């Protein structure tokens, strides 16, 4: 799974720590999400998308997905 978290985080000038605080998770969780290692629950995906003012399908995608 790929994400655009890092890209959007940079756009809003947020650090991983800032985003973690906004979402209410540990910084490491944001790190693993960005690396595509951790598959979040729908609730966490929604919270991250909301914090970055985007939608879940804009934020998370799989390689080969029609964009």
């Amino acid at each position, binding site marked *: 799974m790929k994400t655009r978290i890092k890209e959007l985080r940079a756009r809003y000038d947020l650090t991983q720590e800032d985003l973690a*605080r906004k979402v*209410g*998770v*540990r910084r490491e*969780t944001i790190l*693993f999400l960005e*690396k595509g*290692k*951790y598959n979040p629950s729908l609730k966490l995906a929604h919270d991250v998308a909301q914090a970055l003012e985007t939608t879940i399908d804009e934020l998370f995608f799989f390689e080969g997905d029609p964009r």
Partner: protein
Amino acid sequence: MNDTTRTALKAAAVSLLILTMALLGYTLWARGKVVESGTAMGIVIALVVFAAFALRNVAKSARQGLPLEDEFTKRAKASAASFAFYASLYLWLALMYFEDYLPEHRLPGLAILGSALIFGLRYLYLVKRGRVD
């Protein structure tokens, strides 16, 4: 239960465990059981190192205003617990096989310690790896 209460309860439980193991180590040493005493003191040292590491993480999270536990850590714990249960079945089997070579009445204690160790190591591995599925 908030983070402060949870941390205080965990710290109390770990302190009690360390104190109990230290007392056990001292009692065994006083009875002249040097090897058993050394093992107990080894566990005490491992627990103290682990507690110091955990305390450092707690302090760091508190300073940053971030939670100690979240969805990822809860999933990692659940995954480590199921792995520890599965691995413990094999551990029990091995302990029963080598029962005659082990100190008497130590089987349950060894099995519980082994399960706890498997859980702890697997949890640390998952938390470092970042992939819990």
